[in-house]
């Protein structure tokens, strides 16, 4: 399918409007140039596309299903709610879509070592998985705070053969894991490819990661057409860095009748400082190699974010989201920890699907949106991940654990 140059889908970076670019040490420019060049070649190489498609079919489990959830939707104004089931992918989230693409690219470049940052651990697990599959050395950087609240994913990564580095600098969360991964990359760039996990970072990552994730929306657009005979009124997703949201939004960017809604982590409420609502409360700035929106103080020091969900606990966001917000094509709204946890429990009890806490933000936002759009509307939600990794958090939050029981 050819894309017209004035299409919103035609953006290839380095800039999306005023956002994007490369704000990196000179030492990394050669590697970013190499990655860009190799990716441009891979994009037009039918053999690359064929290998990735076959991996997605036989390994990831694509295409992922869509599931309509009427019992859940009854709590959302009666709108028809349809879930895109990225939670059913191998490794449990959408992250594998991007990782397999980038690891195939690593193979093309001829590097034998991959590094990655991870927050919730989903991107780290996906990278460790792909590294095991392709026999690559793998080091995952994870903030110490996150290694504690996502201990199960640390064990998964180690079982897969990856080294997990617990990052003790700064706020000891995702942003600091990215800093340390960048420091590793600056030092070992000759042998190492950085498998970046989201649509942020320096060019080419925002465009490339989006391209590897856009399969979500391309599948879902057709699936919803097949199921309902029309396009949805709205497409929703949670937004941390924003890869699952860009993945499902992209196919709909040129469908003006389809509203696009990203739900950010409102944490304990956006009145205070304990949230990660970057697009709602942030200002333009440079973080991790790109100009985008970010949470920062007056001096441009990054402000620590907060979310009950490690995957959304990030003070930046991808530049394409900042651009879509600036032109009004997509709307970004905060969802609090409490609202997300209520939605997590509601989907579990009404539909037998336990979502990741990240994805539960999209679910909570969708219920409110459904009440506004009404019973004739159709809303497509990206269910970006499953909740297995969050059982310790949910168990404590809802007091589900027997006293004295040894959990995890």
């Amino acid at each position, binding site marked *: 399918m050819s894309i017209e140059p004035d299409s919103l889908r035609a953006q290839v970076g380095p800039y999306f409007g005023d956002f994007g*670019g*490369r*704000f*990196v*040490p*000179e*030492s990394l*420019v*050669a*590697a970013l*140039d190499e990655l860009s060049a190799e990716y441009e070649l891979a994009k037009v190489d039918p053999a690359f596309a064929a290998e990735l498609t076959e991996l997605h079919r036989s390994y990831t489990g694509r295409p992922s299903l869509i599931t309509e959830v009427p019992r859940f939707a009854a709590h959302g104004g009666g709108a028809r709610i349809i879930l895109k089931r990225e939670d059913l992918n191998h490794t449990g989230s959408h992250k594998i879509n991007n990782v397999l693409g980038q690891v195939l690219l690593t193979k093309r470049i001829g590097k034998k070592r991959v590094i990655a940052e991870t927050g919730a651990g989903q991107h780290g697990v996906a990278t460790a998985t792909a590294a095991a599959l392709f026999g690559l050395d793998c080091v995952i950087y994870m903030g110490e705070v996150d290694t504690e609240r996502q201990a199960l994913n640390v064990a998964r990564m180690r079982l897969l053969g990856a080294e997990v580095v617990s990052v003790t*600098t*700064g706020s000891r969360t995702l*942003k*600091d894991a990215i*800093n340390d991964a*960048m*420091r590793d990359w*600056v*030092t*070992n*760039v*000759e042998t190492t490819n950085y498998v970046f996990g989201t649509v942020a970072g320096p060019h080419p990552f925002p465009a490339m990661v989006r391209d590897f994730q856009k399969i979500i929306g391309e599948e879902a657009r057709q699936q919803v057409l097949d199921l309902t005979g029309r396009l949805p009124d709205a497409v929703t997703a949670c937004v941390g860095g924003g890869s699952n949201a860009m993945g499902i939004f992209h196919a709909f960017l040129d469908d003006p009748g389809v509203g696009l809604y990203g739900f950010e982590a409102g944490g304990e409420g956006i009145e205070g400082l304990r949230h990660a609502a970057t697009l709602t409360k942030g*200002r333009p*700035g*440079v*973080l*991790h*190699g790109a*100009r985008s929106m970010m949470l*920062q103080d*007056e*001096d*441009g*020091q*990054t402000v620590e974010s907060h979310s009950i969900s490690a995957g959304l606990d990030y003070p930046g966001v991808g530049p394409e989201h900042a651009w879509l917000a600036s032109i009004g094509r997509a709307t970004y709204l905060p969802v609090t920890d409490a609202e997300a946890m209520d939605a997590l429990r509601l989907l579990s009890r009404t539909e037998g699907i336990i979502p990741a806490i990240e994805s539960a933000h999209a679910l909570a936002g969708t219920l409110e949106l459904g009440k506004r759009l009404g019973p004739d509307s159709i809303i497509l939600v990206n269910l970006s991940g499953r909740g297995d990794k969050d059982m310790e958090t949910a168990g404590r939050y809802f007091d589900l654990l027997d006293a004295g029981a040894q959990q995890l």
Partner: protein
Amino acid sequence: MTNTDIRPAFTSTVEARINARRAAGGGALIGYLPLGFPTLTESIDTAVAIANNGVDILELGLPYSDPVMDGPVIQAATVQALANGFRLKHGFEAVAAITAQVDTPVLVMTYWNPVLQYGVDRFADDLAAAGGAGLITPDLIPDDAQSWLDASERAGLDRVFLAAPSSSDERLVQAVTQSRGFVYAVSTMGITGARSDVDSAARVLVTRLRAAGSTSACVGLGISTPAQVREVLEYADGAIVGSALVKALADGGVAAVARLAAELASGARDIRAAV
């Protein structure tokens, strides 16, 4: 990229200092210290002390929350400075206090977001007003630096861009053309911190920078001893020392860091015949 030579008529004090050291048969010693560490006052006193003990050019770092080029020693210092309440305005105050006491040129090393938030033009004006000579920008490459190229031109400030062993010849030409003061040759692929050997990549990089037209290539990353300073200055115009000074300050206070500066400076003199 553009190859247009936009170097202006005025003489950079940094470049003049480098030229003078070369003419005297040595090279320039550039000393890095983070502002606000261990306290703002002590960082000012330390900068003055190393300037009075043989450091030719001061590189003063603005503490930043996400310093991707910095190793553990400098990170620990800047984390402490921020925890102590360091604000950007203190940076300008410190530069003014230092330049009032010594005539050593002062470059400020800063990541890009603080400049962006302060306002690029306002930052340039306030730095010039404080007596600062310019900026070293570790995460700003000339490709994305138009606002800084314009502001530094207008305010008459130096701008030091980095060159790396991995940079293409084209990019080295760009770094040389767009930099003023000197070009910061990154000695090794990596981050700040003392190393037992200065990478042989540094010598190759400086040779390539010469071929790209540089007359002031200064080498940084990993230099911590007088012997390393001497070795680097056999082929480069300046040697940049950072983590070693910060460690001396953290361990032994102002007296210790002043002593180290004097030792390092002894490595920077009488390397070849004066001209």
